[in-house]
């Protein structure tokens, strides 16, 4: 580690010092020292140092570049008068920007342009290595920086910024100038880059860069994903998980065997790897925006950015170490075991006498990988899979203490950075994994948690293997609405979509030759003139033989029947809400005090009253698309074994209007009276109902077989799998259960009681007989009538078309052909049948 421990560590990986000395600071510099001397001294004392104006964004960019290389520069923020001193303290700086200025190993590199130029030419990293400030030689293979073989010029600024983008914000997925625009736009400095030509950009922005003093750089770089409000309509994830799997690959993982799925013994390593393989296959469908890295530790080979021993980051080409999943990654990981010993190899990492601590290294690598993305917007996790409960068991004495301490410290550091470390221990029947030896401290378990840890961990393994392929959605409100309660009282509510039908993901049309995406272009063509029209603002309805036109504005005015968002109209007993009062899935509403304080209190009061009095509220929801009468049903919170099953709030049920309800019951009303069941029959039915009881039925315990088979197909196609994963249709009835004697008996009794003894045959006869008889009669008639015609002659003379459709059908029916279609179709069918 470099020698800056103890300074305030910046979130973006830099150290900031104040030049103005303070008495409390350990860095306090003698007052008598002149500014020039101080600057000079700082330059010599610090391997990498940046002098900048306060809150300079160029400095920020430089710092980010350094931190992406694992370097933490010292940053000195200078006052205006000190900047003069800086320029005085260095000769030959003439003409170039004075601040910010970077010094590496005492030598002036220059400003942002100079630094980036150096990096582009590939000289920066060696230079850093030379001054020994780079902790570990960074391999630049991860960053896709262009490396031109020429001296960088000023005009490379544009390109270099583009180069920074991948490091800074690859996930923004914006091209560089767009990003750049946002960056400047965000700080109110009215720079707008009209062209993607880097040269123009430089001309436009460089003179003004100097003026960017009063901006908060952290604010400038705020993630665009912070703005969840941005896409209310799209269901895209705004937040994601960054997960690093750390898999122990020590020989112990391979030695110990445990019963696998098919009762054959499998190594722990196999269990761990196949479990991850399963889980990533689910993850790519459930949460495609998550980023995953898989690291093995205790390996023979090493492959990681920090070049630490015993840690191997598994990856495929065209993918960062920590990145979203790709089919290729999953596919190759499926096969990782085959080549594992050859390519990666396993060895004990922590052995007496060696200073190598592979667990420590692994945590470090994982933490470095997770540096990406802000802790606010991403959930960062390390999942540790091992069967070694005592990693430092083989060493003794001070070394052990020291190693334990540094490893725990490393874990704690990671946790302080907002990374959760989870342990998935693998134990075998004859050797229980003992968490309390070492890992309890590492993951911070104590008391009850410790006791419950092992059983819970078992369940988690189970869960990872049996996860459902299900698209996860981030909690996001659909809309914020105001709820008008009587007398002008207006409270604020948030609405959420808790239940919505999930459909297979959207279809992207591709060109089947190139497999490149296509975009659909819609053009509107005037039916009268054939001219292409722009999206017209008028719509029309033919009414009384006239075209009545409406403008879009008029139509939306018609739909605006209510002034408020949601108006309370009154309350009714729950019995007034019938089972058929439903049109679409409800919205969930819960209160919010974000804008109007006191909303929650009113909402809770009403909520409690409604539950106690068994009433629901009737309100009018004036949405712009379909204003509708709604019922608000209060839902009490339901908690089961620590989890919230039903959240507290109200469900907004869309009520139908009178013309939406159809009087079907009356359709087949029979005035001679309808038969109704006798008490005996009802009793028999009751017995059956009692028998065939789904005791613990809960809604949504079935997965959608159509959706699951779709996901399975996509996976099979993506991974070139030969076989489709088997999909179990959980929705089929339990035939076996139904055949149980008790149920079968109840069924039989009810059946006989209603249908009588020999119903089946009788029913089939009457049911089919009627239709059959009619059809038979019709066919006979057709044959008879068809016989009057000389079909062959008619066909030869081309006279078929003179016959009516009805007459043509005689032939068709008599010859058992389909009778559907237009006349020409019928004629050609007849001709085909005749062989003409």
């Amino acid at each position, binding site marked *: 580690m470099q020698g800056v421990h103890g300074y305030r560590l910046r979130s973006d990986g830099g150290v900031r010092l104040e030049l103005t000395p303070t008495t409390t600071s350990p860095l306090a510099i003698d007052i008598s020292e002149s500014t020039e001397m101080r600057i000079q001294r700082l330059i010599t004392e610090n391997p990498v140092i940046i002098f900048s104006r306060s809150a300079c964004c160029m400095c920020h960019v430089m710092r980010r570049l350094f931190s992406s290389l694992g370097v933490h520069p010292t940053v000195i923020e200078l006052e205006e008068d000190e900047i003069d001193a800086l320029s005085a303290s260095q000769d030959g700086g003439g003409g170039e920007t004075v601040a910010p200025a970077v010094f590496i190993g005492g030598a002036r590199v220059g400003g942002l342009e100079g630094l980036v130029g150096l990096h582009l030419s590939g000289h920066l990293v060696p230079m850093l290595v030379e001054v020994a400030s780079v902790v570990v030689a960074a391999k630049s293979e991860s960053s896709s920086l262009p490396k031109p073989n020429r001296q960088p010029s000023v005009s490379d600024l544009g390109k270099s910024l583009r180069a920074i983008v991948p490091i800074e914000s690859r996930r923004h997925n914006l091209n560089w100038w767009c990003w750049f625009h946002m960056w400047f736009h965000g700080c109110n400095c009215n720079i707008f880059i009209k062209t993607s030509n880097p040269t123009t950009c430089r001309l436009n922005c460089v003179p003004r860069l100097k003026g960017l003093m009063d901006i908060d750089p952290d604010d400038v770089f705020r993630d665009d994903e912070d703005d969840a409000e941005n896409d209310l309509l799209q269901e895209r994830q705004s937040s994601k998980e960054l997960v690093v799997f750390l898999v122990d690959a020590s020989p112990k993982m391979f030695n110990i065997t445990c019963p696998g799925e098919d009762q054959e013994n499998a190594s722990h390593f196999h269990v761990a790897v196949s479990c991850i393989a399963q889980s990533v296959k689910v993850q790519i469908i459930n949460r495609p925006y998550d980023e995953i890295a898989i690291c093995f530790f205790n390996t023979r080979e090493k492959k990681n950015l920090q070049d630490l021993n015993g840690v191997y980051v598994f990856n495929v080409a065209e993918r960062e170490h920590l990145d979203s999943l790709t089919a290729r990654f999953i596919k190759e990981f499926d096969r990782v075991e085959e080549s594992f010993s050859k390519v990666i190899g396993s060895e004990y990492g922590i052995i007496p006498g060696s200073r190598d601590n592979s667990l420590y290294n692994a945590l470090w690598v994982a933490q470095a990988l997770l540096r990406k993305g802000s802790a606010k917007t991403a959930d960062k996790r390390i999942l540790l899979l091992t069967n070694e409960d005592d990693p430092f068991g083989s060493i003794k004495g001070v070394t052990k203490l020291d190693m334990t301490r540094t490893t725990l410290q490393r874990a704690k550091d990671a946790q302080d950075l907002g990374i959760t470390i989870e342990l998935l221990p693998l134990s075998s029947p004859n050797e229980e994994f003992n968490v309390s030896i070492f890992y309890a401290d590492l993951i911070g378990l104590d008391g009850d948690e410790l006791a419950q840890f092992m059983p819970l961990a078992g369940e988690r393994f189970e869960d990872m293997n049996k996860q459902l392929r299900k698209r996860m959605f981030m909690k996001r409100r659909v809309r914020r609405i105001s709820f008008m309660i009587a007398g*002008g009282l207006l409270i604020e509510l948030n609405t959420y979509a808790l239940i919505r039908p999930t459909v297979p993901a959207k279809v992207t049309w591709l060109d089947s030759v190139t497999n490149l995406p296509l975009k659909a272009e819609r053009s509107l063509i005037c039916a009268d003139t054939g001219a292409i029209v722009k999206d017209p603002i008028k719509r029309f309805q033919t009414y009384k033989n006239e075209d009545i036109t409406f403008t879009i504005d008029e139509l939306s005015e018609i739909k605006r029947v209510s002034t408020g968002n949601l108006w309370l109209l009154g309350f009714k007993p729950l019995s007034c809400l019938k089972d058929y009062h439903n049109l679409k899935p409800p919205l969930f509403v819960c209160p919010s005090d974000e804008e109007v304080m006191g909303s929650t209190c009113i909402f809770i009061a009403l909520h409690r009253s409604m539950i106690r009095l068994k009433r629901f*509220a009737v309100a009018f929801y004036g949405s712009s698309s379909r204003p509708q009468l709604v019922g608000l049903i209060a839902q009490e919170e339901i908690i089961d074994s620590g989890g919230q099953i039903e959240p507290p709030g109200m469900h907004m049920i869309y009520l139908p209007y*009178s013309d939406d309800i159809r009087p079907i019951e009356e359709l087949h009303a029979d005035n001679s009276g309808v038969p109704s069941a006798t008490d005996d029959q009802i009793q028999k039915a009751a017995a059956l109902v009692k028998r065939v009881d789904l005791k613990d039925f809960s809604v949504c315990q079935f997965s959608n077989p159509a959706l699951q088979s779709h996901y399975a197909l996509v996976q099979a196609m993506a991974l070139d799998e030969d076989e489709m994963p088997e999909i179990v249709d959980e929705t089929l009835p339990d035939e076996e259960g139904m055949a149980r004697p008790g149920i079968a008996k109840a069924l039989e009794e009810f059946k006989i009681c209603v249908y009588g003894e020999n119903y089946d045959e009788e029913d089939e006869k009457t049911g089919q007989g009627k239709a059959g008889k009619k059809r038979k009669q019709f066919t006979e008639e057709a044959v008879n009538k068809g016989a009057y015609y000389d079909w062959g002659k008619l066909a030869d003379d081309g006279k078929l078309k003179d016959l009516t459709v009805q007459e043509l059908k005689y032939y068709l029916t008599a010859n058992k052909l389909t009778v559907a279609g237009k006349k020409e179709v019928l004629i050609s069918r007849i001709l085909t049948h005749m062989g003409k």
Partner: protein
Amino acid sequence: MARNKEGLVLLIDVSPSMHSVLPEIQKVCSLLIQKKLVYSKYDEVGVVVFGTEDTKNDLTKEVGGYEHITVLQPIKVVDGDLVDVVQQLPRGTIPGDFMDAIVVGMDLLIKKFQETIKGKKRICLITNAMYSIKDPYEGTKEDQVYTLAEQMAVHGMKIDCIIYRGNEKRDPHENNVIAENDMLLSIFSKKTKAKAVHVESSTSLLGALRTRNVTPVTTYRGDLEISSTFKIKVWVYKKTAEERFPTLKKYSDKAPSTDKFATHEIKLDYEYKSVQDPTKVVPPEQRIKGYRYGPQVIPISSAELEAVKFRPEKSVKLLGFTNASNIMRHYYMKDVNIFIADPGNKKATIAVSALARAMKEMNKVAILRCVWRQGQANVVIGVLTPKVSDKDNIADSFYFNVLPFAEDVREFQFPSFSSLPASLQPNAEQQEAADKLVMMLDLAPAGKEESLRPEFTPNPVLERFYHHLELKSKHPDAAVPPLDESLKRITEPDPEVTSKNKLVIDEFRRHFELKENPKLKKSTRRLLRDKTSGSYENQSTDLVASTSEVKIETFGDLIPVSDFEAMISRRDSPEWVSKAIFGMKNTILDLVENSFEGDNYPKALECLIALRRGCVIEQEPKQFNNFLSHIYRFCQETNLLSFCEFLASKDVTFVTKSEAEDSEIEEQDARSLFVKPGSNS
């Protein structure tokens, strides 16, 4: 189309006691006819009013009697005139006899259609049935009704009775009459296909008449498989289905106005183009579907999709029964289906009846797995709830609601109310006030009609649309009509209920305090407001506005001031300041020069003031001062002294040293230009 043609006679009571609701009746009847004009143009409608002073019907002429019944419109195919007829119902003066009216209506239908359109003949009676009907010549009133009902059944007629009862007080005699009339009307529903609904409010009256006649179609006919050996024949229909806003066609105004046969329609044409090369159109057969898999898109041909598609067999199978409390109301996903036993299959009817009654008794529901059609690519899981009929002629049935699959549920976590801080929890008094409010703001008070029953609540948007459509057919420029008062009872709280419960509401208000969150910035709040009005576009327009603002490079004559301000504040190059000042100067000179009798002076002054402000901000005093002198000289040279006077009167001065350091003008000299006119020239 004509196959489903309906013949309808509207029998409307216009006697004095009905006058108060005749406007509503006119509305609902015209809506009915308008919808027929749009959706079923071949239906035929006749209109008969009773309770009128005059008498005009065939039966009077033929057999005598039947006084005070006027056939306003003999049965004819719906057209625009019919709408006018029902919109101008006469106000009667005499208590009408609804039974006589029914006979007249039947006579119209029989004469018009004879034996045709069986089952599609309908009489719709709207009355308050407040007055006693005449005693028949022979037999009792009941006998007469029975005879009529039989005749109706013979001719395949249906009768819908809408009985309006306002909630005013009535004396006992009236109540007796009402009871008798209700009894008589109920005879119809025993003998023939008839429905009688009682409504109390004008709003329900608007909803009581079915204005749209949709022929029901079964979703499924076949077995309800209780087990592999026990099946019940059922038919499944939709019980609720949203009546949508009519799909209006896009209007093209390209056709010349002289073209009488122009359709004005617009055809849609889709072309798929390569993203890389937008000029290349990819033919449909060269397209292939792609699905996302992580960051990639996986192409899957339709053949592959077909080959492995999930294809369940058409069937409706029982999975089991469960307690009704296990299925919460908010899991109902879609519109509702109804299961009825195969009509005419007595045993199926009994089986359904037995099951429904048993389930009702035990408070159980059934869980089903349904595949409605062969070849359908998905299955549906749903809940079957019993509906026990309380009428002899209507069989028991089930309602079916679709339930969500595991994939359809999003497990969001919400804070429990009990864990919220005490400040957010209501205290005992507040709770009491809330209890009172929930009790008192009652929409279904005992002994009265439940208001806003979905069955009787019309769709205010559709009512308004058809109203506007009718207005537009007469005056193409008609404005959108305001929402009808009776319809406002649906969208806003009923003032009657509110005023009656004023005390409770006031008390509720007193107990709770609401205030705006002070921490929230004004700007965010406004933004949020915009968003609640439901538009994503607001944001994009903002974005467009902001980009256009920074892009100002020249300025127009329309809003020179704002253009100038936008340009002078551009920070991407220092040149913009001088460009802006230069441009503004030209604009001002143009304005002054082209002014006719000083009509441009106010605008020029506005620009000049903006220029001055800009020059002060940018610390460019000389630019302004020199220009002011220049324009002064210019005016003198070109005989535009009136502008100088105008400026002097508006007190436009030089930029002084105190405002901008570079200025050479001292405070006292700021007005020098106008104090000593001509001194600079």
